[in-house]
């Protein structure tokens, strides 16, 4: 219990520090002004989401290989946490894009592929609700998770090559290119804080799923008796 509280406190401190750095340490962007600061929430969330999906992929592989329920629990937890972060990306993106690009959404490569990524993992969660038997649900969702993760680079590749031929918004076409050193430091610090948050959420979600799994086993045993 003490350990959880300490971990939580550490993550809160990190997040507050990251927010402080994002608002007061990083210099204001010459062209975009204040709004650019959403970058410190948007970009680290995107990276963290990808990390969570990678954790999900590894858990899926391990489940197929080892068949231990804990890998299934980790898989679902990581998928949900990754989806939460990707949702933050998809929400903060338009909030930034509207004043800077003048539009909420554009079918640009990065936006579109993030959206498809989000859809793939939503399907993963839907699949889990539609298979009753726990072992089968775990195996099928693990296999779909593997297929989905393999698909991600193909989605990114195809959309990047063929969907960006229409005129693209010019400002910040490549975030990260020519970023001010202080901004870069703040960005990576925010990512660290986000990774902390991800670990915290993942652990909490995993505990819930483990309890649910055990409850399910007990219930089934009770039915057999």
């Amino acid at each position, binding site marked *: 219990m003490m350990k959880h509280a300490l971990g939580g406190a550490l993550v809160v401190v990190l997040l507050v520090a990251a927010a402080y750095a994002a608002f007061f340490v990083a210099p204001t962007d010459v062209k975009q002004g204040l709004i650019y600061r959403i970058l410190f929430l948007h970009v680290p969330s995107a990276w963290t989401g990808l990390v969570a999906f990678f954790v999900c992929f590894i858990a899926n592989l391990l489940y197929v290989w080892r068949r231990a329920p804990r890998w299934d629990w980790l898989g679902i937890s990581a998928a949900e946490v990754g989806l939460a972060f990707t949702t933050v990306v998809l929400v903060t993106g338009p909030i930034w894009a509207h004043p800077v690009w003048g539009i909420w959404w554009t079918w640009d490569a990065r936006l579109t592929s993030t959206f498809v990524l989000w859809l793939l993992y939503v399907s993963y969660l839907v699949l889990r609700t539609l298979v009753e038997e726990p072992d089968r649900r775990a*195996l*099928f969702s693990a*296999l779909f998770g*593997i297929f989905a993760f393999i698909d991600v680079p193909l989605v990114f590749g195809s959309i990047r*090559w*063929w969907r960006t031929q229409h005129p693209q918004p010019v400002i910040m076409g490549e975030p990260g290119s020519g970023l001010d050193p202080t901004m870069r430091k703040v960005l990576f610090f925010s990512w660290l804080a986000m990774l902390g948050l991800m670990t915290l959420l993942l652990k909490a979600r995993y505990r819930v799923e483990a309890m649910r799994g055990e409850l399910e086993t007990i219930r089934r045993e009770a039915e057999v008796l």
Partner: protein
Amino acid sequence: MSLLSNTTALLGKELRTEFRSRELLTTTVVFILVVVVLFSFTFDPTSGESRRFAASLLWLAFLFAASLMLQPCFLREQNNDTLSALRLCVADPFAIFVAKLAANTLFLLLTELLMLPVFSILFNVPVFPVFGQLVLVLFLGSLGVSIAGTALSAISAQARMRELLLPLLLLPLLTPVLVASTRVTVGLLDPAPFMEWKGIGFLVIFDVVFLTALWLFGEYLLEE
């Protein structure tokens, strides 16, 4: 060698089952026709724009049709209780997948080839000068759809709401196939037709990647 002979035998079985009733092929052809006609109401098909949209409409219709057509692939085995027997009689379960996906590719390609002339007349796009190239992209696209679709239909056959689940799982996964094949087809239906080889290469990569994944993980999909 046993993989090849098993696959041929199973493919024969798939083809015989279908060509006895032809219900899958007939239904799919009619379905595509309905979708294409309905699409034509959503914009003015006689305008110059139709040339640009034609390829996308065609591929969307094929994709939707495929997501429905692949449904019975494993469901049939399950309903007839033949899946365990199938698994018992082949040494490598990959043979079951190869046979099924080859049959599905063939069925898809057949319906697409039937629809192509109709489509050409309805939307006023000449397909015959580029017929060979079109068949190539149709084949590679259908193969990709069938590989992913056959794998996922083994999953959806054992879930609730399977009719909705398969399209839900399959369609986002097929984004790369849709993007690449539409791009190639748009080029081929252009007034000055050109072949986008990058797209063909991309489809080959997709097919190889997913075939490898199916080879590695397919047997787990058929576990009891």
